């Protein structure tokens, strides 16, 4: 179908965009449009006003500093995927982004748009949770606030932002050089929404024991979820097969949803497989400097 009628504004300044959102009821931010446009075409949404933020230059860009990468909200997914600095300091982004939609949608789709749409299967939301990312949000009168991703994710497709606020950037804390990483997901076809995905980061100490680990799972519940119990269990272990098998058992504590793509039981089975693969690959990669 075609989108329903709406008024369209295309501000070039961030404050102007925030004021437009505040001034118009039932307004929506148009970022990359790769979810919003589809929802408009399907007539899931009837906004009166769209505020296009594609021409606000300050919202796009990648800056890698020691300790954290700052990715502007309007940075295209394809730009992050092909960015050499990100590939060096956070290689899991490239691995996961190859699974996000298709080349044509990654050329337009943005990291901020993905986080605000907050599909439970979204790879970028899962990565943000995996890294304990911080979301920078602009409000009225030049106001800014910073929100940890755990607080940003309020519920099913519901980010914790006001109607007039705009996500400005995502700050991703970096792991040490040579950290292990892996992102696995299963979808019926390449680029489809994942039935389940598993992301893992880990570091080993000099003796080969896991000294730091993060696990985030997408697609299985109403929001991406951390598997904190498994993280705690695996700390200090070396990733022996028995310990990995025990870690998978913590998946039973996940919040699961079933829909026509797969039942809750099926998703649990798939997410266990994805997690096993990601743990094994992250363990194999940890300490290797060539990744």
């Amino acid at each position: 179908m075609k989108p329903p009628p709406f008024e369209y504004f295309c501000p070039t300044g961030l404050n102007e965009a925030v004021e437009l959102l505040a001034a118009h009821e039932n307004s929506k931010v148009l970022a990359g449009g790769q979810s919003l446009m589809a929802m408009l075409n399907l007539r899931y949404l009837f906004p009166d006003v769209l505020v296009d933020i594609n021409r606000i230059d300050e919202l796009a860009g990648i800056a890698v500093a020691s300790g954290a990468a700052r990715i502007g909200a309007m940075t295209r997914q394809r730009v992050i995927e092909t960015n050499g600095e990100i590939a060096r300091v956070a290689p899991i982004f490239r691995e996961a982004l190859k699974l996000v939609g298709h080349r044509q949608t990654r050329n337009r789709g943005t990291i901020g748009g993905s986080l605000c749409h907050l599909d439970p299967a979204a790879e970028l939301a899962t990565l943000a949770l995996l890294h304990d990312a911080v979301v920078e949000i602009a409000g009225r009168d030049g106001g800014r606030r910073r929100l940890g991703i755990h607080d940003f994710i309020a519920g099913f497709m519901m980010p914790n932002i006001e109607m007039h606020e705009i996500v400005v950037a995502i700050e991703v804390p970096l792991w040490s050089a040579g950290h292990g990483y892996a992102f696995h997901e299963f979808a019926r076809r390449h680029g489809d929404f994942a039935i389940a995905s598993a992301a893992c980061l880990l570091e080993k100490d000099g003796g080969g024991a896991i000294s730091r680990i993060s696990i985030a799972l997408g697609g299985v519940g109403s929001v991406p979820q951390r598997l904190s119990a498994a993280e705690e269990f695996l700390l200090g272990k070396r990733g022996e097969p028995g310990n990995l098998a025990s870690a998978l058992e913590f998946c039973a504590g996940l919040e699961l949803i079933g829909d026509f793509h797969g039942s809750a039981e099926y998703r649990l089975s798939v997410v266990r497989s994805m997690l096993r693969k990601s743990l094994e690959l992250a363990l194999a990669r940890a300490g290797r400097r060539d990744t």
Partner: protein
Amino acid sequence: MRTHLIEMKVNGKACSGEAVARTTLADFLRHTLHLTGTHVGCEHGVCGACTVLVDGVSTRGCLMLAVQANGARVETVEGLASAEGVLHPLQQAFRDQHGLQCGFCTPGMLITLKELLAENPDPTEDEVRDAISGNICRCTGYQSIVAAALQAAKELRRSGSAP
């Protein structure tokens, strides 16, 4: 509903037209500029038939508003063949390898492959398949499309011309 004046360079030629904001780029190309080579299939970004290049990068024409492309450089399937009607190496390869049957997906396939070959002149079969993973074809089973892409890549490398 307010109309917007939209100006863009399509296949090297300056074009303009008026449209309401909700007009997608694909519909603007087809209905306002009468460039019907770009096809519209699913209208929610899944089938890839409406793929065009916007400022050099492949874009779903159904997931972008025409007004957003104001000032942009747009390339469509109509821009592939020369003015004299000589087929682009990709089009010639599709013809040689039977890369189409009904032809509905073909404009999106060609445009997507043009972008791929511009950044990777010597792709593997896997890379071709990955590039066209967002373009659905219900006729060919993709074999002949992949063969055509590889033939076109070879021809472009041989002739040393840009895709």
